[in-house]
């Protein structure tokens, strides 16, 4: 079992690379039972107290920060898309890439427990995609993304979209190094979802209300959903979109461009990359 990413070795799989492997990174981490803590330390038998004050997610955060540095050095703008299963993340991503991919280098990292279906759908648009299968894992973490970036060989100045495992709980806690988390909520779900899953909507900077073409057929009030999200996160940006009809997609793509410009404002290295 990998102590860093919490995945079980042999269970998390990144496409094209057989299974999740270690040893090619500059970092060191051990597998349980084989580490040096298995050996007894002579001369240390007295009980003592150690004040640690260490964040439990500190390792994930250090991998996420390494990813963030990589993105900054290469002028890459990365988004982490989170939602329940079935909110239309992949369809939305496909439509986004059809627009953004014409003029910009884009890459997608797909997280699912099993199958390469989503990465296959993305690749049909001509955009390089890499599937991570988390096995029993419920979220992507910073370490997995670091491995995926090694495989993707991203161009400088690119856009990287990370489609997290469909789960409104666990991915909230794991920073991947992205510029923003984007929470997608479809109108076929409840307006109260931000209240039911507050941690995710607190962690996200943007909420996309998807499947708005279905609004005439469902009992969903956009205003109420927006108010609920803002009870959790007063600053959250809300956009309504339909991957099916294309409504709102231009605003969404515009937001991506603006957010990228804001992130890299004043960064000359990025200007050069573009």
């Amino acid at each position, binding site marked *: *079992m*990998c*102590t*860093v*990413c*919490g*995945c079980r070795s042999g269970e998390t799989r990144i496409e094209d690379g057989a299974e999740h492997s270690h040893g090619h990174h500059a970092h060191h*981490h*051990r597998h*349980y*039972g084989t*580490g*040096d*803590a*298995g*050996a*007894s*330390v002579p001369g*240390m*038998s*007295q*009980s*003592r*107290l*150690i*004040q*640690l*004050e*260490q*964040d*439990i*997610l*500190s*390792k*994930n955060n250090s991998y996420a920060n390494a990813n963030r540095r990589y993105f900054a050095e290469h002028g890459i703008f990365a988004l982490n898309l989170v939602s329940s299963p079935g909110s239309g993340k992949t369809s939305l991503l496909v439509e986004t890439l059809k627009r953004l991919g014409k003029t910009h280098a884009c890459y997608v990292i797909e997280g699912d427990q099993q199958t390469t279906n989503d990465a296959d759908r993305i690749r049909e648009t001509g955009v390089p995609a890499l599937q991570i299968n988390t096995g029993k*894992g*419920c*979220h992507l*973490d910073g370490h997995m993304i670091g491995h995926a970036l090694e495989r993707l060989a991203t161009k400088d100045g690119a856009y990287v979209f990370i489609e997290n495992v469909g789960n409104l*709980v*666990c991915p*909230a*806690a*794991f920073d991947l190094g992205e510029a923003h988390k984007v929470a997608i909520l479809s109108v076929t779900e409840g307006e109260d979802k*931000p*209240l039911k899953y*507050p*941690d995710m909507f*607190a962690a996200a900077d943007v909420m996309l209300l998807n499947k708005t073409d279905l609004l005439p057929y469902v009992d969903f009030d956009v205003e109420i959903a927006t108010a*609920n999200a*803002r*009870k*959790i996160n*007063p600053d959250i940006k809300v956009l309504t979109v339909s991957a099916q009809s294309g409504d709102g997609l231009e605003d969404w793509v515009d937001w991506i461009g603006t957010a990228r410009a804001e992130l890299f404002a004043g960064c000359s290295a990025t200007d050069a990359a573009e």
Partner: protein
Amino acid sequence: MHEMSLCENILGILLDEAASQNFSKVDRVCLEVGPLSGVEPEALRFGFDVVTRGSLAHGAQLDIFEPEATATCAACGTTAVIQDRFDPCPSCGSHLLKIKTGEELRIKELEVS
């Protein structure tokens, strides 16, 4: 249910500390888990027992300290204890609350031998 991978993170930290601070057994682990950390303390206890089985922390006592969640209202400036992220300001009813405490997810201290 990411408590299991959090426990694996805890064990990873214990192993690192064992190497750098020269100990071979962990007798007690004290955690600080805020009510807004997204973590269920009971699930964490369950995961801790499973993950530490056969390790240097096998059988270690797990103390979980749960601090209060507090937030400051951007509308009226009041700082108050809240229960949930969607609570309004108890003073003016606004939802413009900035969380101050309650998101902690930390190992506070260890008792080792």
